[in-house]
């Protein structure tokens, strides 16, 4: 019996080597180039200036962001925060948001931060590297969500491919005064559930992300929005929020930059 088992292993390994050598790849398990069945989303993509959020921008200016706080999708407590955010912006003060204050962008707000993204695909993981403050998002491929998930800034993202599309399901997003849902200062609760569909359009020039959102703690109903990124040829640049933030020290309404409150134990 032991000999037969060994035979299985030898034959199995040979089959594996053969599959690898011939370039054969199980659907959904593979990587980055056209010879494989999974879509190639890899590369550096950059954000356009489109305002993405739960509501419309009421401001005609690109540098001032005033969310439509009367949009019925917002529950009253969320509408009050969006209104306050817009009032601050309208008064000429910069309302606190992720990119000014060096807090992580979270999901889906990270898609609205003006930043280049480098997308890396491996069979087990998709990784998003953001130029803006070198933030990182990891999407674990072909596996279920963890049980007893501890909420965190980026939550837990699991993904799979459906044809030409990377489908990413994210839950476990924690709440914090700066864990904003979008650029309008919209808040969220830990019930937030985000499904993103990444796919390439315009003959490879654009990465489009269609986003389905539900959060019964914040919104009156589920809704959808999208973000678009253009393909660029330049590489990834180093951008350090902790020193480059133009608003720190000038305008305290942008909130204090994170500073270590815990003396490092090493």
């Amino acid at each position, binding site marked *: 019996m032991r000999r037969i088992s060994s035979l299985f292993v030898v034959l*199995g390994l040979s089959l594996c080597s053969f599959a690898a050598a011939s370039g054969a790849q199980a659907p959904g398990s593979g990587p980055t180039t056209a010879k494989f069945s999974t879509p190639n989303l890899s590369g550096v993509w950059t954000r356009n200036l489109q305002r993405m959020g739960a509501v419309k921008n009421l401001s005609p200016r690109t540098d001032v962001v005033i969310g439509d706080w009367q949009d019925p999708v917002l529950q009253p407590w969320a509408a009050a925060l969006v209104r306050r955010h817009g009032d601050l912006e309208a008064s000429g003060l910069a309302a606190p948001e992720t990119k000014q204050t060096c807090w992580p962008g979270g999901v889906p707000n990270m898609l609205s931060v003006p930043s280049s993204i480098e997308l890396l695909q491996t069979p087990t993981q998709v990784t998003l590297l953001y130029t803006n403050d070198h933030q990182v998002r990891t999407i674990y491929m072909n596996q279920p969500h963890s049980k007893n998930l501890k909420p965190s800034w980026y939550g837990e993202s699991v993904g799979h491919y459906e044809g030409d599309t990377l489908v990413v399901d994210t839950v476990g997003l924690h709440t914090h005064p700066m864990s904003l849902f979008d650029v309008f200062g919209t808040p969220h609760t830990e019930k937030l559930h985000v499904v993103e569909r990444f796919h390439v359009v315009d003959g490879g020039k654009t990465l489009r992300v269609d986003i389905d959102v539900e959060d019964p703690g914040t919104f009156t109903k589920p809704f959808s929005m999208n973000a678009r990124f253009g393909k660029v040829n330049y590489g990834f640049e180093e951008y350090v929020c902790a020193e480059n933030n133009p608003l720190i020290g000038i305008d305290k309404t942008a909130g204090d930059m994170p500073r270590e409150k815990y003396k490092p134990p090493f």
Partner: protein
Amino acid sequence: MPKRFVAGAIVFVAALACSVADAQKAPDSEGPDISGVWWASSYSPKIQIMGGGELPFTPAGRGQYEKNMAGLKNGTVEDTARTLCTPDGVPRLLETPYPFQIIQTKGQVTIIYEMNHAIRLVDMTKPLDNDETLSILPYYGGHSAGHWERDTLIVQTAGFNEKTFIDAYGSPHSDQLHVTERLRRINGGKQLEDVVTIEDPVNYTRPFTARFVYDFHPEVRLEAYVCGEPHRDISKVRGVKGF
């Protein structure tokens, strides 16, 4: 034994073998596989030279080192990598007591450090630019290019700014710093060795070498590291004081 069972078993073992291989890296990446999550089992705030001895300071280097040491103690020099979470730079990143992940894709080796979510991109497609070109855009982490020599990934890094220390003791470096790393799996693949050679003619009379060893931790996922918030417990890493 039924034929169907035999065939099934072979396919199962094949799938298992393939999935174990695939789990490590993208099939179209080149070179040996050093991908995965790695984590040091010990930490030293002072860089340890291979073979022992003190850092070979030039007079200028010693002066700067003593100034940094005194300033870090009395608060006139701020270690912004720890207080504001500016990048540690290279080689200080190699001393991290937190895990990091290596990802291998076509033309690039990416290293993501949990601590302060530092990212290093190693360009595998071409040699490092010359110093003059690199000096146009100096980075905390420098600019890196790599190539394989058998089982070893050689990474050359230069083009640094002067805002980081070599180690937590404030050992200085200039923008003429050149770092060469030799990374390979050792101990049957269970550990990753990084032998790093540091050259900086402004602060050191000769190149010197340090060695870092990390353990393979496939069960660990990198966590979000946010300046100002408590982080993962690292008290099991030797040399770490604990909370």
